[in-house]
């Protein structure tokens, strides 16, 4: 299973000269202009060394402006260093603290500590962030099988882990709205400083990190040769790799702890270093931190001068930049070979009808349980038929809509996994869910009041535009799966950046957006549920029309072409069906669930391996899972409710990670 990003074509392509001096110069000029705006140059020495405490301008110059100017390149260099180490150890040009889920893990740990054990924060944010980062990276490794995994699969695992930790953090915030802005301030990484403390801390981290890297550099550079060759040189490879990973973790989580999440600097810096002609590891090791410093300084300066009433957090700016960069990478990623389908799991075909019977039984039990079982102030309560006449309106529509959404996600998941031949492909990676979220955020930001119709329109338009973007990028490669995945990841990144930007505004309506993005089903009406079920049924009828393509596409583009399949046409049709299903589901349960990822595998594990049976089984399984999630969401913290989408994500997350791990065996 190889999905290499062709490192020969773009990433390592030497370009004329370096843009490093240019970027540095631009950042320095902007910084000087900013300083000038605060203080006359004649007072600079005084402002730098001995600020007059009674002069606010000198104090701001000394304690806010200068530290910010210095912390940007320091943090950028740390991230660049972490990125180049991660990329070398994992031999993956897409590795970076963000794509590996480290930042999300660190951030999630900080949110949990804020809510549950604020006194821990006083002991040291760094330790908490490091623990979170280690857990997240361990998950990615467990799932992706370490460095033997292909770059694309690692980035997918990282995205899933990021989404999982993000869902956990959102669940906490949905229940603690007071902390909403806080969560997003950290997620959108701000470089604003109010003293030299952070700057000094990060400077020490950088120096110590550079020293540690120097110790490891010689051994790490051996990784440029093949691993077997390295081993024959008598290098204690595993120990060095472990140490290097720990170092990268320490570096990147220290930045998250001090400044919040500044995504993709660690991805961009080594990429630019390589592009500037740094061929050996030593060259990259020197240039990447420099590029990181330049990137973050320039981004931060530009974010400060944008003529907006509210400053754009620097982390949002780097996320947008990262999304564009990933798009650039995806445009140049060449598909060396299509991914084959996951290894078959053989089940005795004779048992299949028994499985199906079991499955239908379980679904009936789940639906009936969800309808009849509830809580009131007296405790658990199994309703009688008579009581149900008063209750059905609050239970049946959301159960039906959840089933429809789960079922559509299941169908979309089967289509996506067969189309891309990647067992980890999920409807989420199409970018439609993220696009729908962007549509809604924009609507909230520009419209004073919103109603249901506008919500649906904005979400659909956002989803459609995102899909159009994915298709436009994909067209050039006849919708090659690798490019679709990277494009989808870019759009998801862009969405999280925009969402964080909107959330930091403190708009009181954003609570509604958060609850929608987390997937609340409580507002589903009977007619809405009927519509959702109808759409799910139509899709389930249409999807089998693509069955022949779906059987052939996973075999690889060569075989598919040999069998006379129009690659572009068949992929486009499958993609469109998956897109409609995803949009429908996103409108009901929000942009994130993992159900579309999990259900097809459960279907396959139960032995439904051919297209038609898998589609039917998966839609039933997806629906049942979502009904279960919705029931848990409704009762677990009564009278409060959790968003269904979050519960589904948290339910499915461990399973999905386990799945990733097993797929490597």
């Amino acid at each position, binding site marked *: 299973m190889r999905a290499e990003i062709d490192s020969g074509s773009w990433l390592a392509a030497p370009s004329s000269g370096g843009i490093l001096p240019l970027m540095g110069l631009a950042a320095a000029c902007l910084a000087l202009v900013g300083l000038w705006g605060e203080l006359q140059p004649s007072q600079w020495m005084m402002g730098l060394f001995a600020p007059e405490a*009674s002069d*606010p*301008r000198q*104090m*701001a110059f000394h*304690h*806010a*402006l200068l530290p910010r100017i210095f912390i940007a390149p320091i943090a950028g260099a740390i991230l660049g260093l972490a990125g180049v180490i991660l990329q070398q150890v994992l031999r993956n040009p897409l590795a970076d603290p963000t794509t590996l889920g480290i930042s999300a893990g660190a951030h999630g740990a900080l949110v949990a500590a*804020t809510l549950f054990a604020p006194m821990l*924060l*006083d002991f040291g944010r760094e330790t908490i962030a490091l623990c979170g980062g280690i857990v997240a990276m361990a998950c990615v490794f467990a799932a992706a099988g370490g460095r033997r995994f292909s770059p694309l699969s690692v980035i997918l695992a990282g995205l899933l882990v990021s989404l999982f930790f993000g869902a956990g953090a959102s669940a906490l915030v*949905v229940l603690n*709205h007071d*902390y909403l*802005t*806080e969560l997003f*301030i*950290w997620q959108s990484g*701000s470089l*604003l*400083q*109010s*003293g030299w*403390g952070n700057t000094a801390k990060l400077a020490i981290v950088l120096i110590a990190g550079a020293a540690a890297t120097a110790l490891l550099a010689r051994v790490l550079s051996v990784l440029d040769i093949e691993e077997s060759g390295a081993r024959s040189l008598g290098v204690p490879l595993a120990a060095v790799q472990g140490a290097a990973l720990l170092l990268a973790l320490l570096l990147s989580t220290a930045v998250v702890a001090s400044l919040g999440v500044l995504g993709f600097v660690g991805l961009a810096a080594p990429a630019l270093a390589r592009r500037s002609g740094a061929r050996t590891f030593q060259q990259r090791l020197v240039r990447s931190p420099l590029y990181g410093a330049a990137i973050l300084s320039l981004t931060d300066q530009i974010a400060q001068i944008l003529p*907006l*009433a*509210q400053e754009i957090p620097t982390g949002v700016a780097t996320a947008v930049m990262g999304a564009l960069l990933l798009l650039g990478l995806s445009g140049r990623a060449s598909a060396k070979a299509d991914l084959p389908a996951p290894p078959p799991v053989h089940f005795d075909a004779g048992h299949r009808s028994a499985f199906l019977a079991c499955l239908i039984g379980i679904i009936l039990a789940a639906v009936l349980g969800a309808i009849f079982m509830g809580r*009131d*102030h007296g405790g658990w309560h199994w309703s009688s038929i008579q009581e149900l006449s*008063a*209750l059905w*309106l*609050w*239970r049946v529509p959301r159960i039906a809509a959840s089933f429809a959404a789960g079922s559509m996600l299941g169908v979309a998941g089967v289509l996506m996994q067969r189309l891309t031949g990647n067992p980890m492909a999920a409807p989420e990676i199409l970018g439609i869910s993220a696009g729908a979220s962007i549509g809604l955020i924009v609507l909230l930001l520009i419209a*004073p*009041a*919103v*109603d*249901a119709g506008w*919500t649906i329109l904005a979400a659909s338009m956002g989803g459609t535009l995102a899909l159009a973007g994915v298709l436009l990028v994909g067209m050039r490669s006849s919708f090659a799966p690798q490019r679709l995945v990277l494009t989808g990841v870019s759009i998801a990144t862009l969405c999280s950046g925009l969402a964080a930007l909107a959330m*930091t*505004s*403190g*708009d*009181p*309506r954003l*609570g*509604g957006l*958060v*609850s929608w993005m987390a997937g*609340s089903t*409580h*507002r*589903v*009406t009977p007619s809405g549920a009927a519509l959702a079920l109808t759409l799910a049924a139509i899709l389930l009828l249409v999807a089998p029309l693509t069955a022949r393509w779906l059987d052939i596409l996973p075999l690889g583009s060569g075989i598919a072409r040999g069998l006379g399949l129009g690659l572009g046409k068949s992929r486009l049709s499958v993609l469109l069906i998956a897109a409609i299903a995803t949009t429908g589901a996103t409108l009901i349960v929000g942009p994130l669930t993992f159900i579309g990822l999990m259900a097809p595998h459960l279907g396959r594990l139960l032995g439904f391996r051919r297209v038609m049976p898998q589609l039917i089984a998966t839609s039933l399984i997806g629906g049942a899972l979502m009904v279960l999630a919705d029931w848990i969401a*409704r009762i677990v913290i*009564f*009278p*409060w*409710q959790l968003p269904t989408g979050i519960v589904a994500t948290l339910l499915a997350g461990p399973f999905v990670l386990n799945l990733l791990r097993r797929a490597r065996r």
Partner: protein
Amino acid sequence: METAVRQVLSAGSSGLTRRAFAALALAGAALPADTARADAARRVRIAALDWSGAEALLALGVAPVAVADSAGYRRQFAHAPLPSSAADLGGRWQPNLELLASLKPDLLIVSSERGPDEALELRIAPRLAMSLHGTGLSPLAAAEAALRRVASAVRREAAAEAVIVEAARVFDGIAKSLAASIRPGLIVAVLEPDGRHVTVHAKGGLIGETMERCGIRNAWTRPTASIWGFSRIGIERLAEAPEARIVFVDQGPRTRRALRLLAASTLWQSLPQVAAGRVARIPDLFPFGGLPTAVRLARELDSIVARGVVHAG
């Protein structure tokens, strides 16, 4: 009646006490012409999914049967205490409709921003939307209009007029007392727990509007990013209004953490306002509340201004 209301609204600068508020409720109920209708109103079961709606009801002497996120309400509306009988409906953005329906309310008070839930909520009871924002009215005028609408729904129009008149009297009294003095401006801010940001309330929101109405000078005059009248800035920018007094909203653990970090910050310590000790706190309040919130805020700010007043005469 008049005296009872005045007694209530002048019940101390630290906000209305529980007892005083009960007196207000009684005052509303004791209006002779209203007595019969008040009996009817007492039997009306109203659920408030919107906090400013719950606040308005309580100001009119009607206790809601249920409130969304009642713990959060109690934290931010100390001046309008909720009876312990009120049920908790869960999160404001995802209220438990099944529980709500089982309480069989006669009327729901919701936020105008929560449009999409309309269809389902209407199956439970008629809705009254509190439109405090985006109405084209100033926040205070919108709060008065919203109070009147709630009052006509529960047939307590007279009580609403009494609350509005009394609020105007409080505002005018403060404005009059301050007119004769040179007064320092205030910056009303929320200290963000990262120790680097503050959210300042400027013109446009309820807080800024209340200050303007009372003649309390708002020292933060920069245009704001949001239509809600606040923006988030770095703490160093507070120095742009060096003569002002910084008034921070005490939000409990968040604010305590911010204060711990700020205590260690040279920049914060060197801010002219901080160095001169011109920092004051007010108890937590909901920046999107209604008229009673504005009255409480006005009193609290007034007492803070009074401490810093230099009499011109």
